[in-house]
């Protein structure tokens, strides 16, 4: 039985071509690792929607509503103060604080949703064991793909990757 294979490429064009061949040969591309966001790679890998924006919208609106509620409660119910005859519920100026904190809350919810959907923070990962993988954050492009659970399929996948121009193909051992 074989684990998924990770192949190292010198440039993004070769990586994308290899990805196309892996898909054509009915193996399963899992992920790619690149030093910068390569345009179109996410579509080739069919990355699904993440729900980050929904989290941001919901978090922002909820916190903004809470902030408005706090102002309304304190200014109307708990500590009514007649300031120059202005209405206790001065909702026009009470919108300023909810906007500010709402935007920050949206940003925070988005950051949490981003990390959550990426499975980060995860300081260690089996891929970090692959020799040379530290170059994925510098100048090399990696493709992670898995074959069906047979030695023959794994051999074929390795063959496809090597013929597509991979510098090295390594098996990922999962703990």
């Amino acid at each position, binding site marked *: 039985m074989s684990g998924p294979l990770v192949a190292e490429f010198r*440039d*993004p064009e070769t990586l994308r071509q290899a990805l196309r061949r892996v898909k054509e040969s009915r193996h399963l591309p899992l*992920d*790619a*690792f*690149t*030093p*910068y*966001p*390569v345009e179109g*790679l*996410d579509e080739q*890998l069919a*990355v699904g929607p*993440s729900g*980050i*924006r929904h989290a*941001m919208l919901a978090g922002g609106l909820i916190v903004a509503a809470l902030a408005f509620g*706090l*102002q309304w409660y*304190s*200014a109307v119910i*708990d*500590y009514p*103060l007649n*300031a120059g005859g*202005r209405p206790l519920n*001065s909702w026009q*100026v*009470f919108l*300023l*604080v909810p*906007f*500010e*904190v709402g*935007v*920050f809350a949206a*940003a*925070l919810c*988005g*950051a949490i*949703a*981003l*990390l959550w*959907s*990426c499975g*980060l*923070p*995860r*300081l*260690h*990962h089996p*891929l970090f064991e692959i020799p040379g*993988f*530290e*170059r*994925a*954050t*510098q*100048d090399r492009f990696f493709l992670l793909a898995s074959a069906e659970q047979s030695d023959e399929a794994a051999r074929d996948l390795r063959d496809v990757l090597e013929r597509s121009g991979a510098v090295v193909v390594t098996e990922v051992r999962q703990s």
Partner: protein
Amino acid sequence: MTAILEQTSPPPYRWIAASRASDLEITQAVAEPLFARAGAAWWISMLLSLVFVLWFAGSIGWLFYKGIGIWGVNSTVVWGVAIANYVWWIGIGNAGTLISAMLLLTRQKWRGSINRFAEAMTLFAVTIAGIMPIVHVGRPLYVYWLAPYPNTMALWPQWRSALVWDFWAIVSYLLFSILFWYVSLIPDLATMRDRTRTRAGQFLYGAFALGWRGSAVHWRRLKTWHTTMAALGVPLVCSVHSIVGLDFAASLMPGWQESIFPPYFVVGAMYSGFAMVIVLALGFRWGLNLQAIITRKHFEVMGRILLMASIVMGYSYATEWFMGWYGGKHSDRSLVAFEFAGTYAPLFWALLACNVVLPQALWFPRVRRSLPALFAIAIAINIGMWLERILIIWNTLSHDYMPSLWRSFHFTFWDWSFLIAPLGFFAFLFLVFVRLVPAVSMFDMRELAHQERAA
């Protein structure tokens, strides 16, 4: 130290001035200076800025001990340097996020060279801006009363107060900027983690990189978040400086109670911020040998933005004068006359020269392409914008409705301290920043190099 990316001229690409900029070369050009020993220039600047940091700390300590009477403020001119500093610093602070977010939303790919330190500028400037109201309130030990919390006094903040709006605007904006800056720094921290050779470096960069491995899925998610943050950041920035404008506009004073104030403050923020980015970019370019990454073309387009902003500023000033005259109120008309011919008239003319007249030189391509000229104009704009902020305060307060109250402001040593020492503190924060994290976004630069076919 020689640059890893050699600058070639004329620049072979639009935004990269090197004949070849491979992923590795970009990485090395940005990351290597952080692993090398700091040069003499850095140490000298550091020592110099430390003097200012101590001066700033000492000034704050003396102010806390003696009270705000150490400044030139008096019972008529109740606001002074601290408030002008607050507006000026938060203006610079707004520009970093505004620049980064607007350039991202308008797909200006050259932003990759400047967005990182422009955002860092935001963090540091907003931090300094946040100190100013605290030192100004007179009873700094009660500053926490601005926060709503259940207390035995059964008191709540006054939500109709501009000071309370400021508190929420600064806090929200500072935290937002930290997130915006840090999350987009994660991929570069991962690069640092993978390049550093020291144990402490691996530990710290590794911890802050959160295990980033450059997955295509993660890049996609990061892009989604980052674009959304930019779309949120632009209205947030506009609202923050609008709230600062409301500090004045929500009062009843002549020259302050104007509906133009919020947008006029936002443009001023972008203006002084871009000028500050140019000053910092010139410093980084020289100090970190980034001539190939921050090109002359970058300075030229920033020069164009300055020119545009200076025209809008001139238009705003003219609108203020026109409305003062057209409104027909005696107090407003006499205030405009006081601005041009009163106690602070020389400063007012200097402000017009710095903000409106001098930047018109940027119409000429030769001036935009000359780095010394651009540097001089950027410094002049920063001075002019500070003068604008202080004159908004002084002119109105010195020339209020009641002539028997007219007084002018006189600088004391401590006014100078609060004006000058924060600049050194700002420089100190930047000197620490350039030694700890990459000052240019490496992944954005790699993407740019591939788009420009320089890689």
